Structures are given as structure tokens and as C-alpha cells.
């Protein structure tokens, strides 16, 4: 069966420090991968989308970047964190592209920037 892992689960970082959140998927190949951010426990904002290795689409210009160095690995990064980067970050994968298939979410990474 397929599983998705995200880490770290929680992170407290000072303003201006770097960030790296990692997500891996097991039990499937060539998944579509996504990073979402959830602010204040409510709506989800799509940050990045990837259909394959090295292929990253950014939905919202901001202080973050994403990379996909391997088929089932998706990394969210920042060189210098801002206070506004605080939130709950969710990685997800799907089999079908273009929003046709259901998303399977990881357990999330809660980032607090102080």
C-alpha cells in the first residue's frame, strides 16, 4: 500500500534562518506531488506542484522554493524565513494529474517562525 511521510512534524525557527521540509511517498511511482500551506487551521493554499523529477510549478510567488530530486521525494525550502511563513505545511500526492484524482495527504509539518 502507498504511504506518505513528512518531517519534521514540528519546527520552531528564528526569522532569517533557512528551512527544509521533506516529503517522501512509498508504494507508488511517478506520483504527482503537492505542497499546500494551511494558515490558522483553515483554508489550504497551493504552493507548489510537480508532475515529475525536476518539474516544479509555483502557484504563488513567495519566499519559498521546492525541489524534486527523486521520483518520490519532494522538498520545500527557504533561504531566509519570514514571520509570515509560519503555518501548517501539508504534502500530498495523487495518481491522476490535473485534479482528477483524490489527494493523499501527509500528517503535516507545523512551522513557527519567531
Amino acid at each position, binding site marked *: 500500500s502507498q504511504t506518505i511521510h*513528512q518531517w519534521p512534524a514540528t519546527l520552531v525557527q528564528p526569522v532569517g534562518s533557512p528551512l527544509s521540509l521533506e516529503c517522501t511517498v512509498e508504494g507508488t511511482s511517478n506520483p504527482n506531488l*503537492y505542497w*499546500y500551506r494551511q494558515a490558522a*487551521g*483553515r*483554508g*489550504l493554499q*497551493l504552493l507548489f*506542484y510537480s508532475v515529475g523529477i525536476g518539474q516544479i*510549478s509555483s*502557484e504563488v510567488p513567495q519566499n519559498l522554493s521546492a525541489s524534486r530530486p527523486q521520483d518520490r521525494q519532494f522538498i520545500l525550502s527557504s533561504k531566509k524565513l519570514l514571520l509570515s511563513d509560519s503555518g*501548517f505545511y*501539508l504534502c*500530498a500526492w495523487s495518481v491522476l*494529474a*490535473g*485534479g*482528477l484524482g*483524490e*489527494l*493523499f*495527504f*501527509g*500528517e*503535516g509539518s*507545523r512551522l513557527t517562525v519567531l
Partner: protein
Amino acid sequence: AQSVAQPEDQVNVAEGNPLTVKCTYSVSGNPYLFWYVQYPNRGLQFLLKYITGDNLVKGSYGFEAEFNKSQTSFHLKKPSALVSDSALYFCAVSTTGRRALTFGSGTRLQVQP
């Protein structure tokens, strides 16, 4: 552009009573509609989806949703609520040519014993 509206921030219902969580959508094409549930500090879990076919879709945990094209709605329903159904519920939409789902702002369901 595509968008989803969940007009109620919170829905309160007594255990055993039927529940409805409302969702309306806007897309420039045929809609693909989804419901997800989120428990505190957890990721979202898929409940059900409508792509095509019967307007009434049945999903996990006894939930169902009805697609209404004329009203552009996809309300989530359950005949008899359980206290364990208390959670945050998200409606989401996509359509042909779109890369990912667009989520609503979420509705908190509180089921009282």
C-alpha cells in the same frame, strides 16, 4: 478561474440528527468535486468525489454528497451524526486542464452528545 465557497464557518448538530455541510463552486467547465475531513493537527483525509455519473455520491464513514449542477452545489450529508464526526471539513474543486484542486475555507462540524 475556479473557486469554492463554504458559507458556514461552523455547523452544530446533535448526535443522531442528520447533518449537512454546504459547498458551492465556480468553474469554467465540468467540475470535479471532492470532500475531505481533517482532525486536529492531522493531514486531510479523502471522503468522496464526484467526477461524472450519478449525482448522489456515497463515501467513507456513511457520508454522501449530492451534485446539483443548476445550483452549482455539492453539499455533504449524513443521515445520523456521530460525536466522532466532529472535525473540519473541506470541499474542493477542479476541472479539465487545471493542475490541482482548489479548496474551500473549511467548515467546522461540532456534534453534541
